[in-house]
């Protein structure tokens, strides 16, 4: 199964609203099939089919859905086994065992949040629902181990099959993890742009960093986690992933760039806590103009993926060459901004050259 060369640069051309609607249609069809089966089978636990479909589509991305299919089946089996074992062995003899449930629930969630293992998540959800029913229901005879375990497991298999069938037939290109990956790349760079913007304001105008800054940092961390997770999912979508050298190199370059950008941002944040901007190096207006261009670059990476080039890196490099202020925080700030700009230029030009055959556009001057 091959999708041909996957172009990294088309992140600006995605019609997100259209894709979301297509995907919503696919999920709604899958769920409706589950509801129809629920009514037509007319069995006590047939709602499990619709619930499995809902859980399968809970996190978006085809790679994610394929990856989670196996975990869902295994997790359901283990979850049902543990839940019914708990009910039939412990709670059957003494109801006070139920007091232990919140503690088990808490420990299991801790374990899931640390490991991020989807199988554990499924075990938890699977245990939770029958246990809730048992606690609230007076007629516990409906939870006989053998029948319920077998029927619910079969329903899970049916639910997983329906979800996969719909995912691969109805608007099959609407929910690719690779699309989300590309979108997250743009979001990540845009977020870095926002962080830089706040840092610039703080450094040049002496505006104190507030909760907004903390929020942006938090967003940035989420983007990195999301990119890593989507990267893992993509391997399940493209079976020729390993052979696709340009693509592999592009992703490798992306993660190296992210690591460097994070390191430089950390240094910038450290500089902010010290001295303010020193006008001996450059006027405030000029400096603001240069750093704003770097911020703009990060916020609009799409243009640079299409071959746009500027001379912000060279201009800020000329500021670093003023040697009489090497220890000043302004010099250190310039240096970090220079590296950030250089990392960005390297990455965007690499993407452009790898996926386009035409030459880069003429360099645009940042200073009028």
């Amino acid at each position, binding site marked *: 199964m091959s999708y041909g060369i996957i172009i990294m640069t088309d992140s600006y051309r995605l019609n997100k609203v259209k894709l979301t609607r297509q995907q919503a249609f696919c999920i709604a069809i899958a769920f409706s099939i589950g509801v129809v089966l629920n009514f037509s089978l007319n069995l006590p636990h047939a*709602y499990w089919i619709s619930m499995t479909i809902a859980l399968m589509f809970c996190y978006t991305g085809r790679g994610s859905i394929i990856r989670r299919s196996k975990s869902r089946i295994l997790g359901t089996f283990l979850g049902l086994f543990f839940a019914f074992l708990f009910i039939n062995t412990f709670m059957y003899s003494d109801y006070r065992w139920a007091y232990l449930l919140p503690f088990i629930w808490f420990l299991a969630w*801790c374990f899931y*949040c640390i490991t991020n293992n989807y199988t554990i998540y499924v075990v938890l959800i699977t245990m939770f629902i029958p246990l809730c029913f048992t606690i609230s229901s007076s007629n516990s005879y409906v939870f006989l181990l053998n029948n319920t375990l077998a029927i619910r497991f079969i329903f899970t298999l049916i639910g997983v099959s329906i979800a996969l069938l719909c995912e691969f037939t109805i608007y099959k290109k609407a929910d690719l993890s690779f699309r989300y990956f590309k979108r997250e790349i743009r979001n990540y760079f845009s977020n870095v742009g926002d962080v830089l913007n706040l840092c610039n304001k703080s450094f040049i105008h002496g505006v104190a960093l507030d909760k907004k800054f903390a929020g942006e940092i938090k*967003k940035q961390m989420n983007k990195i986690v999301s990119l890593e997770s989507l990267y893992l999912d993509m391997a399940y979508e493209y079976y020729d992933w390993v052979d696709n050298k340009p693509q592999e190199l592009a992703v490798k370059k992306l993660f190296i760039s992210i690591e460097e950008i*994070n390191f430089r941002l950390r240094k910038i944040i450290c500089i902010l806590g010290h001295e303010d901007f020193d006008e001996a190096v450059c006027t405030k207006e000029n400096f603001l103009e240069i750093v704003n261009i770097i911020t703009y670059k990060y916020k609009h990476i799409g243009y640079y993926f299409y071959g746009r080039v500027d001379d912000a890196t060279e201009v800020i490099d000329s500021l670093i060459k003023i040697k009489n202020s090497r220890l000043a925080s302004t010099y250190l700030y310039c240096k970090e901004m220079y590296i950030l700009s250089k990392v960005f230029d390297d990455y965007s030009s690499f993407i452009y050259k790898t996926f386009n055959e035409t030459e880069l556009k003429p360099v645009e001057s940042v200073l009028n």
Partner: protein
Amino acid sequence: MDTIKKIFFLSNFFRFIHSYDPTSEYFINALKFTIPGCIGIFCLIYFRWPSNFLIFFSPPIIMAGTLFYIDYKNKIINMAVVSLEMMIGQFVICVFYKHQVVLIILLFLLFLVIYGSRKYRMGGGFAVIQIAVCLGFPPGWYNGVEGCIGILIGFIISIISLLLFEYFTARFRMRSSLRDCKIIN
């Protein structure tokens, strides 16, 4: 400190300690999923409400939707949207249970709306789980309204829990996250 760690080969030990740091996000998230449910069970037992298990089933689902948002405003809006979706789903299923074609069409439209919204689809995905579970509930107007009341109480419990959690844990959680991504030592 780094040198000391290297000398005594303690870096692995510190990494282990940091990953299981109780001020970290995982611990708070686990509490978020446990405490509101426990409060729901307490309410159910103490006030002797009829067997409406949605009071303790809905808070973890409502709370799960908040994980995808950073600011309070979006978290609260998302919680309200998830609760509303759950209530509509519960009510529609209970009322139209005997009119299956109408029910399927209504649910189809509801899911189109839930998953078609780009902003609230992640939280809405959790609401759909609860809607699916509702298919196993006893039908009827009375049960539908009772379920809606259960979800409403669950929403109130969740929102109080969220505000308390954010108030007490925001500061050290932020510090822990910053340390985790190596922005501070």
